[in-house]
């Protein structure tokens, strides 16, 4: 095992105007584990990921990825990351293969390896047959898998997934889960994801952290968290217990979040 944690977050706070999105967060993710950030809309999950992937410079606190400070070593951190944002973010005017190859170039994958590497990740996500079709003809699940391929093409040590299955139907969701698990087994990479779906966290994650209003409320394996609440408790009960609200009534969520989700849903049409 590497001595450095894959991710270490210490005292991270982040505000947008007068709204405190993340409030003194401490987190450690070990190499090779799949770690889930759970919480209602507006809990600070996406903001945390965006500081971690160097999109937002940390306002206070320290965030390290494999020992590298995101503030001072942003370019090196980016080389180790694969990132799939919440929206379905592919270029519909390009084919699947061109979409992946675009990111291979942006990550400086050497020219002689590029074609093979692109073909390899397309095969992992089961898009070889559709690779030369325009991505605008893909279904929602295929788009998500294509995004995974884009995120994998630079062989990241840490894969960051922001709500990887939001807006997908159950079959597409299963297939995304299967890919994530397969990739983890194949490459031993660390996975950090956010999700609203407790079932997803239960199936995929080795450990989860529950965030509410920018603060860490609980952290542990799904089994530990469920056991702490009592026999027969589900992860959904744990969620309710720590956030004080039901999954359906997430009234506290920011408009930004809702807008993002709706946009995704529209694109999926």
């Amino acid at each position, binding site marked *: 095992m590497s001595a450095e944690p894959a991710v270490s977050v210490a005292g991270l706070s982040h505000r947008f105007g007068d709204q405190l999105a993340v409030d003194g967060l401490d987190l450690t993710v070990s190499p090779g584990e799949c770690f889930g950030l759970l919480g209602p809309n507006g809990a600070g999950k996406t903001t945390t990921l965006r500081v971690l992937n160097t999109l937002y410079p940390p306002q206070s606190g320290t965030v390290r990825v494999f020992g590298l400070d995101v503030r001072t070593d942003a370019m090196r951190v980016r080389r180790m990351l694969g*990132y799939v944002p919440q929206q379905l973010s592919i270029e519909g005017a390009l084919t699947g293969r061109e979409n992946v190859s675009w990111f291979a170039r942006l990550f400086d994958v050497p020219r002689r390896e590029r074609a093979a590497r692109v073909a390899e990740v397309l095969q992992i996500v089961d898009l070889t047959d559709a690779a030369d079709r325009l991505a605008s003809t893909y279904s929602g699940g295929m788009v998500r898998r294509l995004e995974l391929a884009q995120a994998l093409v630079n062989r990241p040590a840490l894969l960051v997934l922001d709500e990887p299955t939001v807006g997908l139907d159950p079959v597409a969701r299963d297939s995304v889960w299967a890919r994530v698990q397969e990739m983890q087994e194949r490459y031993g990479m660390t996975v950090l994801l956010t999700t609203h779906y407790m079932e997803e966290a239960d199936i995929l994650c080795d450990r989860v952290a529950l965030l509410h209003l920018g603060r860490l409320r609980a952290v542990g394996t799904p089994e530990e968290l469920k056991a702490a609440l009592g026999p027969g408790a589900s992860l959904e009960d744990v969620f309710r217990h720590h956030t004080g609200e039901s999954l359906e009534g997430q009234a506290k969520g920011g408009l930004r979040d809702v807008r993002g989700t709706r946009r995704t849903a529209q694109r999926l049409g």
Partner: protein
Amino acid sequence: MSVAPAAPPSAWVDSRPRAALRLFSRIGTFCLVELQKLRHDRTELITRAIQPVLWLVIFGQTFSRIRAIPTGDVPYLDYLAPGIIAQSALFVAIFYGIQIIWERDAGILTKLLVTPSPRSALVAGKAFAAGVRTISQAIVVLIVAALLGVSLTWNPLKLLAMLAVVVLGAAFFSCLSMTIAGLVLRRDRLMGIGQAITMPLFFASNALYPVDIMPGWLRALSHANPLTYEVSALRGLLIGQPTNYLLDFTVLIAAAIAGICAASALLGRLAR
């Protein structure tokens, strides 16, 4: 399902190319992507060609006949053709910022911003990709002008230089568009502003008429307008009108660099 971690991250770190190389690599990447998009959808090439053709065929031929604009020994249509090339490139580039707002709404921009690419390299890549798009435009106008009997140069070096001028102009105007995108952050506002500034940029230049016949205030504006230098260089290259190439290229290169700096500085606003 924890497993042993992947190879130590230090393995990735040493493969970093040098900054200048990376800049050129990013520019090449974005130009290639633009070409791929054009290859998949050629309708834009045709629809975008309609307007410049109308300018040449209707406006150009009519004004040639009434001889209202003093252009010396040069037929008006010949004088106009380089101006219309610049204009059609301007029209493509000035709305290029819409693409970046679309990419932002689609989450693509977020992904681009977390690739190991400095923001200036991303913007420069986009700016020259806009140039690629305008090249196809310029070629269409060139062919139409030749069909209308404009006596253009067919010197390949001059034609290459013409493409360089068009690309530099497109780089500046697309950066202007991306800068506005970074300020207004919304597609509809950018459309409005783009439409509001296109015609003033076009009229306050020497694209349609010589600077000498303009009133003083308009002449001053046209000297501050990079489009004027683009048109001057194009006229020099295509129909052999005397111009100061050093000045033209200096202004175009300086404008493109300034545009890239301004747009990169505002790119972060789009990421929020």
